[in-house]
């Protein structure tokens, strides 16, 4: 009954999406207010029914209704409640349902908060959202219906892949989807602008908060996924240049570029055509990501239960939307009024530089991800493009970008004074050089690149701090004045600083972890001691335990440093009976930003256990960085002029003056 209701709600949502994608367009043509307003009510109703459908599937999972094929294949009655719920999107059908539910959610947000948009723009935006939604509803209903019943209901389900039975699954996919799908809003705005043939600074002001929201979620989603892989896979890797990770990195890079180019458009009314193109490309890359994951064309762990017919279907959707929007772009872009050019040394010049590097870096990731596919189709050779490729291409492109980051926010609009900025950044530069020298001396010559990279990171962080210090006239005015200025500073300025500093923080973590990671791999018997990076790790005992749907063997380690006990680490290995599979549960012990990491290998015949232990210096900074970036995004979002449901034009211009 619930399954049928969920299925029916999804069909209704499709019908509503079809209305939403056509009627408002007609209304905009006829300048009929009533028809244009249909967009708003259908978007809300569509979200309601799609949400109901999603809730129905969740209810089936919670109730462990194994007469539904999807639940049978991915759930188990003994599974903890949390994993029953997260299991809803731990499979192809459910994750696609989550995808459209989030799409409908964003559509409903535009419908709710878009009151101050010009009526025809809102109608067009929601209509484009309706097209995307309709395409994906058809995809789900035709090839991946999660509500299919089985002829005979089995007594027990096949359980969820044990690797996925983790809190990471509760957070990572929804976050990532909020990011991916959030970019559909900027896409719809771009397509709507092309249809209307009109675009101005106000357009950028409407688009930026949506892009920012999507970007914040994507940033956190990627970081979360990386941390999940780090602790779940048991060998301490946090980024693998896996096709699917690249698929999430590409929209992040172009989305970051979009955020920056939208600033130029908003403030200087320039780069319009480029911004529209970026908005289209960013969502196209999100769709490409969905295609890569869902079609299984690239060998990847993410390609669960892949099926060629689905791949072809998504490929058709992909071609339709990317091809269609780019054709529209080529046809209409020339009709958009071009903004003026500007001096290369200026804030907008710096933002263009940022865009150039980000999109080029994105292109190298694109080539690295799709080249194996192209080569296999052309020659039949199977190759893998791994970390070495990306280190040689992506890395060098990011160095000049990072060098330029501190300069950007300090350059004035229109005509910047690069020497003046360089003078103000002198202290940060000197501190960076000192850091390089110190790290160099301390590590006595090891890897040459590491101290330089850390110096660069320090420069980025201090540059971000310098920018704020300059703006609040720290040390040049009485402290109370500076404080008052700090409070009055536009939140967007704080946002910029946090986000840029986050970049530096992440870089320090990445460099330290990859350069000074130490490891111990070997077999230990109870009371054996392993020494690692100044810590002594003593294996106390190995025990067995029965969990809800698994058995696990647990090793207990006592950690001491110079004889002082600092903690206990308990890694384990779980065997899941339903799928006859095992997972490694690593134990982590944080010491500041550094971590000790233990994971268990096979039991050996002699009563000893194989272990791998790592000391990962400053590894946590890798994820603190993105968290800082997201925090910067939130601060920027709370800036008066960018608030979702943005202020009325009159108010906005006043806020703008205050920000300048």
């Amino acid at each position, binding site marked *: 009954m619930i399954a049928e209701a969920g299925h029916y709600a999804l069909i209704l949502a499709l019908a509503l999406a079809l209305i939403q994608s056509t009627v408002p367009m007609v209304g905009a043509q006829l300048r009929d207010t009533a028809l244009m307003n249909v967009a708003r009510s259908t978007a809300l109703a569509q979200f309601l029914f799609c949400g109901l459908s999603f809730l129905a599937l969740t209810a089936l999972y919670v109730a462990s209704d194994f007469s539904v094929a999807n639940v049978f294949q991915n759930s188990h009655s003994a599974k903890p409640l949390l994993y029953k719920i997260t299991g809803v999107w731990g499979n192809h059908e459910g994750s696609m349902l989550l995808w459209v539910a989030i799409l409908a959610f964003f559509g409903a947000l535009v419908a709710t908060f878009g009151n101050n948009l010009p009526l025809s723009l809102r109608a067009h935006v929601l209509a484009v959202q309706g097209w995307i939604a309709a395409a994906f509803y058809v995809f789900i209903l035709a090839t991946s219906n999660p509500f299919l019943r089985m002829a005979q209901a089995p007594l027990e389900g096949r359980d969820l892949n044990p690797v996925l039975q983790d809190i990471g699954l509760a957070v990572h996919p929804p976050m990532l989807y909020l990011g991916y799908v959030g970019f559909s809003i900027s896409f719809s705005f771009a397509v709507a602008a092309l249809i209307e043939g009109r675009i101005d600074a106000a357009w950028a002001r409407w688009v930026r908060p949506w892009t920012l929201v999507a970007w914040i979620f994507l940033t956190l989603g990627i970081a979360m*996924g990386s941390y999940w892989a780090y602790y779940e896979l048991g060998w301490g890797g946090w980024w693998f240049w896996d096709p699917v990770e690249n698929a999430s990195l590409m929209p992040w890079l172009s989305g970051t570029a979009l955020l920056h180019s939208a600033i130029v458009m908003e403030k200087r009314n320039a780069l319009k055509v480029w911004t529209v193109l970026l908005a289209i490309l960013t969502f196209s890359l999100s769709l490409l990501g969905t295609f890569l994951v869902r079609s299984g064309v690239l060998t990847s762990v993410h390609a669960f239960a892949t099926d060629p017919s689905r791949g072809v279907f998504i490929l058709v959707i992909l071609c339709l939307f990317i091809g269609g929007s780019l054709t529209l772009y080529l046809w209409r872009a020339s009709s958009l009024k071009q903004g003026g050019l500007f001096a*290369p040394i200026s804030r907008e010049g710096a933002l263009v530089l940022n865009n150039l*590097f980000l999109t*080029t870096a994105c292109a190298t990731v694109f080539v690295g991800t799709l*080249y194996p596919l192209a080569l296999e189709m052309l020659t039949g050779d199977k*190759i893998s493009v791994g970390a070495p490729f990306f280190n040689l291409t992506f890395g060098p492109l990011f160095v000049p970008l990072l060098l330029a980051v501190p300069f950007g926010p300090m350059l004035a609009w229109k005509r910047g004074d690069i020497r003046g900025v360089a003078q103000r950044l002198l202290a940060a530069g000197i501190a960076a050089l000192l850091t390089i020298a110190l790290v160099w001396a301390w590590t006595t010559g090891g890897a040459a690149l590491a101290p330089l990279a850390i110096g660069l990171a320090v420069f980025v962080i201090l540059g971000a701090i310098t920018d704020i210090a300059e703006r609040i006239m720290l040390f040049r005015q009485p402290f109370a004045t500076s404080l008052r200025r700090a409070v009055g500073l536009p939140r967007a300025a704080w946002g910029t600083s946090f986000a840029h500093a986050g970049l530096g923080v992440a870089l320090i973590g990445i460099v330290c972890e990859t350069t000074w990671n130490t490891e111990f791999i070997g077999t230990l018997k109870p009371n054996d001691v392993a020494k690692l990076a100044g810590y002594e790790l003593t294996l106390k005992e190995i025990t067995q335990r029965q969990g809800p749907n698994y058995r696990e063997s647990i090793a207990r380690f006592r950690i001491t440093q110079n004889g002082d006990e600092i903690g206990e680490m308990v890694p384990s290995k779980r065997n899941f009976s339903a799928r006859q599979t095992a997972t490694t549960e690593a134990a982590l012990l944080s010491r500041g930003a550094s971590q000790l990491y233990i994971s268990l290998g096979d039991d050996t015949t002699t009563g000893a256990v194989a272990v791998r232990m790592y000391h990962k210096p400053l590894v946590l900074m890798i994820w603190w960085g993105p968290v800082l970036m997201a925090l910067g995004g939130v601060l920027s979002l709370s800036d008066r002029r960018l608030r979702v449901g943005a202020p009325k034009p009159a108010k906005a211009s006043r806020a703008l003056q205050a920000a300048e």
Partner: protein
Amino acid sequence: MTRKQRRMTMIGGALAILAIAAGLVLNALRDSIVFFSTPTMAAEKQIPAGKRFRLGGMVEQGSLSRGDNLAVSFKVSDGGATLPVNFKGILPDLFREGQGVVAEGALDANGVFKADTVLAKHDETYMPKEVADALKKQGRWKEGEGGKPVVSQDTTSANTTNIKPSVTQ
């Protein structure tokens, strides 16, 4: 600067960055990609010692032996040829005899494949896609071994391709 000069600066800068990126990509594609081979293909192609590649096939029944200090050796076969593999470290959770495996490394002077990374299937129905395709091509494919995820493990921590869990992105 005149309008024209400004435009030329912008276009010139963009082209320069693109050219650098293209150079980097071409250079990296020449040096850092790794080909995939089954034992039969490896024998046919005469892959020289020291050249890195990915070896895929089935772990031969009864060929796994463990030495001291986590040293492991086993044989990878594709039904035609067989290659001995040496590996030092902890094998993936689901490494088993008679099942699919992909190892990355290079041949040594004695024709033994020294693996630094071993990837193995992740659940009962999984077969690495590249192995399945290669076996199909050689006509040694048995139906009923569908596609499910791989998880890999390696001992060198960074700098190796690896695959992570999570279903939905």
